[in-house]
């Protein structure tokens, strides 16, 4: 599967030459797995702007980073004296404390670790406050409830962005955290529309017979997921050549919507920026099941 995607991506990365490299901003420290834009970073087709408030982790990143990575030793959020609830498990730390009643109702009260959760005072910055951060083309976020604050404080830096990939919560787990509807509203205000949910995570409702059932097949309660938002405008009229290239690359590699990449290629071909043969070469890499069966 990875091989198929790598071939598909290579058709685009070889042919698409923007006037400057795509800027990807990733907010949400400590990725638990490889970020979806990693292949673009390795192909030097994007520059990544990341954040790491922890001094030691920041130093490590500074030592290991490539020329295509920039890190800020900041936490992103709305400014003020705030508290970071530093959870012992990676990926659970948040600007919001955990919501006991909500967690209990989905059988996840055990996620609350009061003894091991540190409250760290914090003064976050907004994206728009950072003079060294240029306008961004693609925003990726996963910060356990803090996503809305990033958006509100990034209106300027996001004004030219073609896509936002954000974690959205469907069932509350932190007290007062914004939910899907809140994020959706802000993103629409900033001129984006929902494209799709990349994946969603569900949990099993608590009951006393868990030893008798296969948990992975018994998870009905939706918890969260990653949503993809795209620019809500007539792309042929409003997007620059570079923006269409960024959107094509992101659609291909970051959120796996090759039909959208083809749509971008069409517009670029119409502007005489690309050869029409590129779409054919691109489709030639698609797996069989995504192709329409030829009539016998």
């Amino acid at each position: 599967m990875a091989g198929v995607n790598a071939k598909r991506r290579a058709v685009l990365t070889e042919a698409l030459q923007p006037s400057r490299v795509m800027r990807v901003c990733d907010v949400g420290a400590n990725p638990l797995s490889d970020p979806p834009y990693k292949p673009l970073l390795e192909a030097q087709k994007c520059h990544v702007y990341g954040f790491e408030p922890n001094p030691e982790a920041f130093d490590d990143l500074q030592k290991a980073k490539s020329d295509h990575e920039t890190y800020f030793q900041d936490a992103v959020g709305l400014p003020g004296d705030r508290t970071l609830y530093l959870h012992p498990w990676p990926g659970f730390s948040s600007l919001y404390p955990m919501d006991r009643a909500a967690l209990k109702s989905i059988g996840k009260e055990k996620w609350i670790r009061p003894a091991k959760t540190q409250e760290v005072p914090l003064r976050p910055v907004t994206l728009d406050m950072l003079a060294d951060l240029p306008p961004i083309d693609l925003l990726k976020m996963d910060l356990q409830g803090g996503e809305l604050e990033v958006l509100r404080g990034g209106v300027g830096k996001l004004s030219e962005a073609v896509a936002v990939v954000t974690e959205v919560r469907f069932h509350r787990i932190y007290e007062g955290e914004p939910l899907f509807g809140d994020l959706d509203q802000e993103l629409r205000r900033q001129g984006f529309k929902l494209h799709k949910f990349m994946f969603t995570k569900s949990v099993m409702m608590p009951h006393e017979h868990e030893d008798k059932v296969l948990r992975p097949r018994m998870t009905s309660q939706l918890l969260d997921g990653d949503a993809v938002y795209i620019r809500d405008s007539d792309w042929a009229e409003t997007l620059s050549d570079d923006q269409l290239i960024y959107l094509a690359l992101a659609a291909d590699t970051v959120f796996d919507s090759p039909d959208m990449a083809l749509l971008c290629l069409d517009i670029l071909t119409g502007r005489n920026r690309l050869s029409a043969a590129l779409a054919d070469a691109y489709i030639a890499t698609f797996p069989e099941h995504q192709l329409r069966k030829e009539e016998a």
Partner: protein
Amino acid sequence: MADRLANRRTRFLIDSLALERPMHIVDVGANPFGARPDYDPLLSHGSAQLWGFEPNEKAFAELDSIKDESRTYLPYAVGAPGKARFYSHKISTLSSLYKFRRAAADFMGKGHWYKREITEIEVDLVALDDVDEIPSIDLLKMDVQGAELDVLTGGRTKLTEAIAVIPEVAFYQIYEGQPMLRDVDAELHEQGFVLHKILFQKPALLPSSQRKQLHPRLAASQSIDGDAVYIRNLEDKEAVSTEALKRLALAADTVFKSFDLCLMCLDELVRRDAVERRLPRIYVRKLPEELRIMEPAVEASS
């Protein structure tokens, strides 16, 4: 085979739960377009009463011909009460109280959506709360192309005790001013429901010069709409009556296949001494094999 197992399980739950009265199911936009609705087994077993709304004359006549003691069909259009304009689309699944957005069809490569005739008709809308035929609602299902929000706001009283709502929700705006997932979500939270799951998402293949080469579904990426399941907020179980828990257990099993939720309700019913202690244990054994950790054969026969 799977159907027969599901049927037997439904039957077993109905017998064990002994509801005080049949569950009240309301289906707005009842035209199933040939498919059997998910709540149908509950009607066949006499444990639910259906009120289906279908304003389309032809579809209503078809539905009315299958009515029986557990199925009532009403030819009303439900929404915010009063006169409204209805955009009747030649592709009847696209007919709506909201005006079709040509730009949406273009983006998703659905040009044929507006090449067909759209007739504007004046309709009288009724609020669910004003429909005297319906005493109260336990389960509400809606597929009304954007009118879901108005149905909900007009049914706040009759929905007070409801255990689940299954609305079609919009991910992409295909009508002008059409309420989206977030709007329906906000109203349902306001009424004390939480999002439980999304049953499916219908995707559209974005149009390009290459579209004829691509599989219309398996290469499609843009979400259009889907069915969501909302359930009564269970953070405070004490606030949910025993009868409501029984109805939720039944709906979770049969209508939207959330067996873990059903078990959770059964456990709570056991805690309240409202059902036999062994009910959840027997129920687990009636689940499809692929969901279970199989017991040794000796135990299974005991």
